[in-house]
Structures are given as C-alpha cells and as structure tokens.
C-alpha cells in the first residue's frame, strides 16, 4: 500500500498542538485534535459533551484567535475535528499519523502511548513533539512494530511561521518512515528539515539556549547592560531585531528557564554545562513571575504616561527596577551600519576594538567552540546546526557560516592568542588545508564533513532551484546593480531583483525589457523570482519611493509618465510574450511587486504571501498595469459566456476596494479570496522550493503547447461604477471614515478601473486603461497631499492619513 496522510491526530491542544493542527489544516489535511477531559467537572456536566470538550475547545479557539494568525484562512478550521481522550480515543484508528504534543512529563507520555499502541492501525506513524524528553525513554517497552513507526517531530513556535522541523529518528524507526515524514514535512507542510539525534533539546534549542545562557552570564561578568547586549546581537550580526532579551520576553523566561534546567540536568558531560545556569537576577525574575510578554513584564515592559503615551522600560539587572530605555550604540555598530552586506556588517562588529565588539567576538568564539564540539553528538553535519539556527531562531547565518565570514584561520589564530580552546575537529580540518566550511563549485554548494574529512554536497530536493547556486556557476546571462537574468536550466531563465526590499527602480524596468528579449531569442520561458532573506522577506515591496519622490519634487512629470509607460510596456510584453512567464512571489509583494505578478501569465506563490496594491497609502494608484490587471483578474475569472452578461458591479466593487482600501493578504490563501490569485495560480508551502516549482510550471506550460493569450478589449464597468463609488464615498466622508484626499484618490481610481468616460458594459482597449492609469498617477503626483504622503512614508515607514 502506498502511504498517504489522510487524517492526522494531534494530541494536546496547547499553543504547539493548536499550531500544528492549524498548519496541517492549511495544507488541506483533516485533523483530529484531542485533549483531556477537565478534572473539575461538576456532576451535572459529567455527561455533557460540551463540558467534556472544554479544554480542547479552549485550545482550538486560542489557535483560531491567536495573533499573528496561526491559520492561513479561518475556513481551514472546518478541517479540524475536536474531541477528548476519553470519548474519542477510538477515532485514532482512522488516523495515518498520530502526533503527541502533551505536557513534558515522561509518565504521562508513556501512559498515553500505551493507550495509543492498542488502538492505532498498523503502519500508522506515531510521533512525539517533545522538546526535552529522550525518545528512547518514552518508547521503552513498546512493540517492535510500534518502535519502527515511532519518531520525534519537533516543531517550533509559532508553528506556521517557524521554518524549522527537527526530525529525530528512534533507534528502530524504519528508514521508509523517516523518509516519508521528511518529504511530507518539506513539501506538504513547507518546513525545513533538520535531522537531529536523540539528545536533550535536540539541535536548535541545545545550541540556542546555550547561546542565550552564556551571553546572560557574560553580561553580568563584564558589567554590560541589557540594552547594550540587544544592540549588539541584533541585525548587525544577522540576527532578529528581538536580539537576546526581547526574544526571551517573546518566548517566556519560564520556558527558557525550564529548557536551561533540562539541558543542565540531562547533559552532565557537556563541557559548557555551566553556561546553562541562569544568572541570579534572571532567577529572581522567574520567582517574581516577570516572564515577558505573557505577564506583560519581562526584561522589557511598556508603560503609559498619564496622557496615554507609550514608554519603553527595561529592567536593571542589578536593582531589578525598571528604567527608561535608552538605546546605546558602539563604534562597531556605527561602522556596520555603513556596510551593505551582512558579511561586511558581521566583520565590522566581530573585528572591532571597542567594548561591544570585543564582547561580541568573545561570544562568537564561544559559539564556534560550542557548535563544533556538538558534532557528531547532536547532529552529523554542520549543515544541520546552521539550518536549525536559521530556521528555528531566525538567524541569517548559523555559527559555521559566521565563522566562515570571519575567516576560520583568522578566528582560530585569535582564539589561540586569547587562550581559547579550539575544537579538535576544526584544528584537524585546518591542518589538512581546508580553510572554509562551505564552498560553491559549479553552482553546487559543498560543506565540510568532519566525519569523512572531505567536502560533500549540501543535500537539496531534486525540484529545488537555487538562483544563488546558478549565479555561482556563471549562469548569469545579463545583469546590473538592481537585477540579473539567470539561466536556471532547461531553457528557463529567472529575472532576479536584488535591490533593497527588491524595490522596483528604472534599472529593474530596463532589465525586464532586456530579459524578455533575451529569453525570446534563447529560452523557452521566464520565472520572475528571487531569494532575498528575512522572515517573511520581500519579493518586492513596490516601486522605489525615493526615486518617485525626487521626480515629484522636481516636477518632472513627463519623466514620470515615461517611466510608467516603460513599466507598463514591460508588463504587457511579459503577458503577450510568445513564451510563458511565471511570477514566484513570497512575503511582501506590494505595489509594483504585486503589479509585476498580476502581469505574469501565472503566479506560483509561497503560502506566506502579503500581497496588495497599497499605493493609495502614499497618495498614488497602481499605474504599472495594476489597476487594469486587478480588474482583468476579476472579469477573466468568469466563464467567457457568463462574463458577457453578468452584473459587473459585483466584480467591480471588490476589485475597486482592493485598491481604494489598500487591502492586502496575510497569506496566499487570503490572496486567493481577495482575488489577487486566480484559479490557475498555485500555492507552494515551502519557500525553498518556490523558484523550482515556478520553473516546473513554466516547463509544464511549454509542454502543454503554450500560446500567448489573445489581446482583446476588456468589458468594463463604465460610468455606472463611478456613480456607485461617488455615492458611497460621500457616505464614508460624511461618516469621517476617510479623508478628503482619500476620497479624491478613490474617485479617480474608480474612474480608471471602470474604463473612463464610457457606458457600463462597454469594451475598452487595454491601452486605454493604461493611459488612464498614467494620467491619474501624474495628476496625483502634482498634489501636495500626495507628496506629503510619500515623504512621510520615506521618513517614518508609516502611512500619513492627510
């Protein structure tokens, strides 16, 4: 029988159980979510199914209402059936995978698995999401068949957003089971797989927690402050803005304390065991229940002044009093700010000579020592450790990658000079003349494998395409500072943007034209995609606003018109090119980024998609074909015969609102319901596979004998739509729900989208609407209030509602 996952049981409805259930439902899989019957039922409640499901219902509701959203679409919730461990246990028979996420207590887990062993159908995979209890302890005394299907699946919180899934094979788990869950996790659930060994806290938390512990201790020893530490261990070192202490506030100091103690107890031979002992002030904070966000006070807290203003406070580690937060800086951080690349920033910080830089270096050296010494104890390769930190802790580089950036040899020399122990495996590696952990050769990424003392290929899924690897293999066929055209094989090329936030500027617009020409001559199809980092990252945050601002201030309106015309020509050319063009958006896909996708033949989107035409926030409208293509997406979603005779207003109002209200999606599923994605567009769960899947889509379209769409006039809402909008905007304005300028902009957007001065139901050339887009954009650019909005956005990154 071919293994399939039809239904999954999640046992335990806490934040992790609920999160896993939501993820599975998002992937279209039926879920049975179970939890215990409350202990404190009153007599009259004992037969009441609602009372008996009270705990699981509360967990389910918490997942449904959590912010940020755990569900990609609330509709998915209908795939989840809830129940309790007394009345619904037999239903486990129907499940192909049973995942345990109950309290971290060995006895409770064993008792549960004993019951599961009795009801599970043969071949059903059983996993534990335990983070601290060894699997071998949990499955002791179970049947062979059970053990062959038992393993660890360790998700990270919040499950939807954290890419990492640690898989821990049991001693007897069948390879085909391991392989199946790895593929399922990667493809269906979109996770990044790290193979961990059955050691306490596995990979991510073992490394991550030691990193936090040692920094806390060193801070006290060196007399540094919490804000100082957070300023160093943030984006300058490729780590999230929440750095150390804000991260702990987010996770909860109680949880961190628990993991520290667990690691300390279970790892008696860990040479850095002592770094897991939390400093006294932090233990006192635990006693005082200053856990962080969940108790509204942790290392940081937000106070309000009497007149309602927010004030950020930070705890003083000596006095445990909260003080006003002053953001410190160090010369090395100022230096890092000037650097464009992460590698440059990291070097600035680690190689500086101020107090902050020296502290950062010491901690980096410690993490090098610790990570290298964990191989092969917790994982077989450096790839697993680096990936776990990137995917589970949102670091942009794992410890070995940081070490590579510093220069291994250079770092080792400095460590030796400072009497810091250099791990033996790294020493041996250097002695053999190998001076880097990773290297790129012919587009293939290799890592240094300690076990065999040789370089091996970093394993990637077959369908995965790496633009970076292709570029490293001299496959860039055209390029400039803002964009490149890369050969990704089989005649397919990829246009890659690489500006800040992948903002679209004149160079990118030019590149698009060049790319289309090149592919027409030399290729079979085009992917528009990129691999910028970050969570969620930005496919493209829109047009380069600084560029637009300058043109507005200089009153260069004919240049604005020319820029728009060129952008529109590029987008139209991609739509009507004789080869398929597939856009592969992920993360922030706003304004011009969204327009680029709407102009493509097809969209293959990552499930985490924040897509919208938000130009009105800066007093503008989509004028790269976006206003037209938004409408086109709606009208062309209908069967042709129906579109001829349908009430256009039912389509026009939502399409118009998408732009006039600057609606954007919080997931690809949401983008579909808003109409940004259509029936032929696809959603991919794993971002690592996105470009590869887009390439596959191109090849499939080619294989299906691709012919470009015939250009035909569009049926438009005409002036009937403008009347509807005029009347409704008057109400919004009267109700003070929008400003005069918003109303002015929205009316004109309605005019453009509805085709201008024509009767309802008229057929209008695409060029007509494109001209209306440009005219409106230029007229908006002449408005003082629009310029004020643009400047405010550039200055504060927030919209101005004038």
């Amino acid at each position, binding site marked *: 029988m071919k293994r399939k996952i039809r239904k999954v049981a999640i046992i335990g409805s806490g934040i992790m159980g609920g999160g896993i259930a939501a993820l599975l439902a998002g992937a279209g899989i039926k879920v049975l979510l179970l939890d215990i019957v409350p202990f404190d039922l009153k007599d009259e409640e004992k037969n009441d199914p609602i009372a008996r499901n009270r705990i699981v219902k509360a967990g389910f509701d918490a997942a449904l209402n959590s912010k940020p959203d755990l569900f990609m679409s609330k509709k998915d919730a209908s795939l989840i059936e809830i129940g309790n461990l007394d009345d619904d246990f037999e239903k486990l028979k129907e499940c192909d995978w049973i995942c345990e996420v109950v309290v971290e207590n060995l006895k409770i887990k064993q008792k549960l698995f004993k019951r599961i062993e009795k009801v599970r159908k043969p071949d059903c995979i059983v996993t534990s999401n335990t983070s601290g209890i060894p699997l071998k302890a949990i499955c002791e005394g179970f049947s062979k068949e059970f053990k062959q299907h038992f393993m660890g699946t360790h998700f990270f919180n919040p499950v939807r957003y954290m890419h990492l899934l640690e898989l821990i094979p049991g001693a007897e788990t069948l390879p085909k089971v391991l392989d199946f869950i790895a593929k399922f996790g990667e493809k269906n659930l979109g996770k990044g797989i790290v193979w961990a060994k059955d050691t306490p806290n596995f990979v991510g938390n073992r490394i991550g927690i030691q990193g936090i512990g040692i920094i806390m201790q060193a801070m006290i020893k060196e007399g540094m402050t919490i804000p100082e530490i957070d300023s160093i261990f943030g984006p300058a070192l490729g780590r999230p803005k929440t750095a150390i202490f804000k991260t702990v506030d987010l996770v909860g100091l109680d949880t961190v304390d628990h993991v520290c103690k667990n690691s300390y107890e279970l790892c008696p031979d860990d040479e850095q065991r002592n770094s897991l002992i939390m400093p006294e002030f932090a233990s006192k904070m635990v006693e005082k229940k200053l856990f962080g966000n969940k108790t509204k006070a942790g290392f940081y807290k937000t106070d309000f002044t009497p007149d309602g203003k927010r004030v950020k406070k930070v705890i003083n580690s000596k006095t445990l009093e909260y003080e006003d937060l002053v953001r410190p800086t160090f010369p090395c951080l100022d230096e890092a700010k000037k650097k464009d690349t992460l590698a440059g920033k990291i070097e600035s910080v680690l190689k500086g000579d101020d107090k902050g830089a020296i502290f950062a270096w010491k901690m980096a050296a410690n993490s090098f020592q610790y990570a290298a010494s964990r191989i092969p104890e917790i994982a077989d390769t450096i790839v697993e450790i680096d990936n776990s930190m990137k995917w589970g802790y949102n670091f942009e580089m794992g410890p070995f990658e940081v070490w590579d950036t510093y220069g291994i040899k250079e770092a080792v020399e400095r460590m030796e000079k400072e009497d810091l122990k250099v791990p033996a495996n790294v020493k041996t590696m250097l002695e053999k003349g190998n001076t880097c952990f990773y290297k790129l050769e012919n587009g293939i990424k290799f890592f240094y494998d300690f076990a065999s003392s040789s370089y091996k290929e970093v394993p990637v899924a077959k369908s995965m395409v790496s633009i970076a690897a292709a570029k490293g293999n001299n496959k860039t066929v055209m390029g400039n500072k803002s964009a490149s055209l890369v050969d990704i094989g089989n005649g397919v090329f990829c246009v890659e943007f690489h500006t800040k936030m992948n903002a679209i500027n004149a160079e990118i617009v030019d590149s698009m034209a060049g790319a289309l020409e090149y592919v027409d001559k030399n290729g079979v199809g085009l992917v528009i995609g990129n691999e910028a980092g970050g969570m969620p990252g930005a496919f493209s945050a829109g047009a380069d606003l600084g560029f637009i601002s300058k043109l507005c201030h200089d009153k260069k309106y004919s240049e604005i018109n020319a820029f728009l015309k060129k952008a529109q020509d590029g987008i139209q050319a991609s739509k009507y090119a004789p080869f398929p063009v597939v856009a592969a958006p992920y993360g922030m896909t706003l304004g011009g980024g969204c327009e680029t996708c709407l102009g493509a033949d097809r969209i293959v989107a990552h499930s985490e998609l924040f897509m919208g035409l938000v130009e009105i926030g800066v007093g503008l409208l989509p004028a790269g074909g976006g206003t037209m293509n938004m409408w086109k997406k709606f009208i062309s979603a209908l069967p042709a015969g129906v579109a001829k005779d349908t009430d256009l207003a039912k389509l026009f109002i939502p399409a118009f609102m998408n732009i006039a209200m600057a609606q954007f999606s919080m997931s690809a599923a949401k983008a579909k319901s808003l109409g940004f994605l259509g029936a032929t567009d696809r959603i991919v769960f794993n971002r690592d596979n996105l470009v590869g899947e887009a390439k596959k889509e191109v090849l499939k379209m080619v294989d299906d004998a691709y012919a470009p769409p015939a250009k035909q006039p569009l049926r438009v809402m005409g002036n009937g739509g403008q009347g509807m909008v*005029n009347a409704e905007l008057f109400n919004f304005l009267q109700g003070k729900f929008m400003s005069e300028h918003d109303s002015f902009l929205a009316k004109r957007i309605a005019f453009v989208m509805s085709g201008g001065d024509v009767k309802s139901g008229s057929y209008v050339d695409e060029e007509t609407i494109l001209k209306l887009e440009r005219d409106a954009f230029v007229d908006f650019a002449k408005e003082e209030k629009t310029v004020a909005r643009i400047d405010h956005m550039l200055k504060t990154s927030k919209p101005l509602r004038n």
Partner: protein
Amino acid sequence: MKEAYIVQSIRTPGCKQNKGLYKETRPEELLSFILKTAVDKTEGLKAEDIEDVMVGCAFPEGEQGLNIGRIAVKMAGFPDSVSGATVNRFCSSGLEAITLASARIQMGWSDVTIGAGVESMTFVPMGGNAPRPHPEYSASNPEMYISMGITAENVANRYNVSREDQDKFAAASQNKAVNARDNGLFTEIVPTPAYKFEKQEDGTYKKIEFIVENDDGIRSSTAEGLAKLRPVFAGGGSVTAANSSQTTDGAAATIIVSKEKCDELGLKPIAKLVSYSTIGCKSDEMGVGPRYAIPKVLKQAGMTIDQIDIFEINEAFASQAIYCIKELGLEDSMDKINIHGGAIALGHPLGCTGAKLTATCLANLKEVKGKYGIVSMCIGGGMGAAAIFKMV
C-alpha cells in the same frame, strides 16, 4: 366625492432581515397570504368583489419585481378580474398604496380596493440589487444618494439630539413592545405561515412550514445597556444599531369599500381616510419629514394636532423621531405616540411600513377608543408623508 370606508386592516408579524423567521420565506407568500386573509376575515366579502390591489414596495425588483402587486393577487387565488399594481415612494409606499386605493373609491372609479405593502429586506436588500447612481449627478449632488444612517447623524448633530436621549427613546420603544406582545395588544397581527428548508436524514432538503405569531425583533432593553453599543454610520457619531429601526420583512393589507358597496354586502366600516399629504425636504436630513408633513395634513383637513388620539410616527431613527416629536410640540403626548413601540422594536420593512402602521394605528385607536389617528414617516431622498384616519 364618494365615501370610502376601511373595512379590514391587518398585518403579518415583522421578522428580522436575514436572521429572522422569514429568512427563507419569499415576499410573494407574505403578501398573498395577507391579501387572502384580509378578504377571508371580512365577512360578506368575496375575492371576486375586489377590483384592484395597490401594493407598496420600496425595492420592487428581484423577488419583489415583475409587478408583485399582480403576482401576489394571483397567488392569493383571486380571480383573473382582480388587477394589481406596485407603488413606490420608498418608506411611505404602503401608505401611498392605501391612499391611492381610497382615492379610487372616492372618485367613483372602483367600489372595492385593497391598499397593501410588502418588503422582504432579506430577499431584496435596501438600495436594491443593482443601485446605479447617475455618474455626473452623483458627483455634483452626492447627498441625493446619501445613506440613511448619515441623515440620522445629521439630524442628531444639527438639532442637538443627544445619544442619551436616543438610547432612552429606543429602550422605551422596546419596552412598550414587550408589554404589548406579552399582553396580546397587537390585535392587528395575523399569525402567518412561513417556511424553511431543512436537511433530511438522506441529505436532501425539505420545505417545512411553520407559523409565526409575533414580531421577532423585540428585546427588553435599558438605556444603559444600549449606551454600550458603538455608532455604526460615523466615527464619533451617536446613531447605533439599537437606536435605529430594525431592518425587517413583513406585509400588511387594508381593504377599502365604497359606502354603497358596504351597504350592499353588509360590510361593517371601521374607519376612513380623512386626508393625506406629502412634502419634500433636504435629502441629507430626510428624517425631519414628519415635522412638515403632519402640520400640512392637519391644515388640509382643517384640524388641530390636539384632536389626534393616536400617532404612529415611524421610528426610522430615534434621532429624527425625537426631533419631530419635539418640533410638533408633542413631547408631553408620549402616551399617544407609538403606544406599543415603533420600528426600533417592531422593525421597518420599508415599503410595507405605511400599510403596517395603518393597521397598527386603527387597532390602537380601537384600543384607546379614540377617534382620529395619524400615520406619518420620513422618506429617503428627503420627504415626509402623513395621513389622518377617522374611526367610524
């Protein structure tokens, strides 16, 4: 002019739009039922005696289109000879239908007519299915298409009607309605069949009929409780869902017969229409309509306001109702106004409202043994209407 007598005036219960008991019952059924029942309840009158039926409907399209006035007549089982028309003046449509039906008799053009009203806001939403304001006129005069909620805010702001007074008024309306329902005082109501589609064991659906006895939007309320609601039409406004009329489904019918025909068939007159007026006002404060329409109709009839025993002034919004009552000098006559509650509790099924309030007015006049009653309402687009009825 001939004498035209009302011999029957009844209504269905009003049920909440989309959530209420009529949410699956089409408007044709509500209307044809109330027409047929009006005839059946009138001893001595047969369907073939009816000559014409005027039906008020504010959004005569979709399920209410195709001239529901004629379709409902046929669905009621009336013979081919009975004609039917749909009449629209938005919220006074039902009253307009009754006055037109009366006028036909007074002119001597008919002997037996029905004036009725119907609105299923569930099936045809307010504004209709396909509103298309004129592109240029809506740009220069958007207030002609203004939302009713904004007009209520305008009345509150321009004439200083406080949120507190609106909530008090709304709670009083609800509580009067609770009392009337619990004590069986809605004698104009006829229990009305409705239906729903219920899933069967085999997965198919079956139409299930049931009877609706009461208005389903009545909620016992306190002003303090209502004060918690947020304004819905304007940021920082005072008009809430609770101090506005409910959007509702319902139907009502009134039979009017000439004196000669009453004598011939032995029918018992109840009341008659004395006079009817309509008047225009600013569209962006349409709620002030009754404040002008009532003095106008009294002047037409040569009467004074103190002669009136019962007022049914439609509570489109508490703000406009309070303003009109104040301007008419009726603040001390609350015992005569909407004595069993108004549209805030009982609902405002747009085109049905005039016909519904006529039935209520006549029932309440009977209850208090009064002689004269007024039915009045404000009308979208900026109008007011008022009619005086006299018991006979």
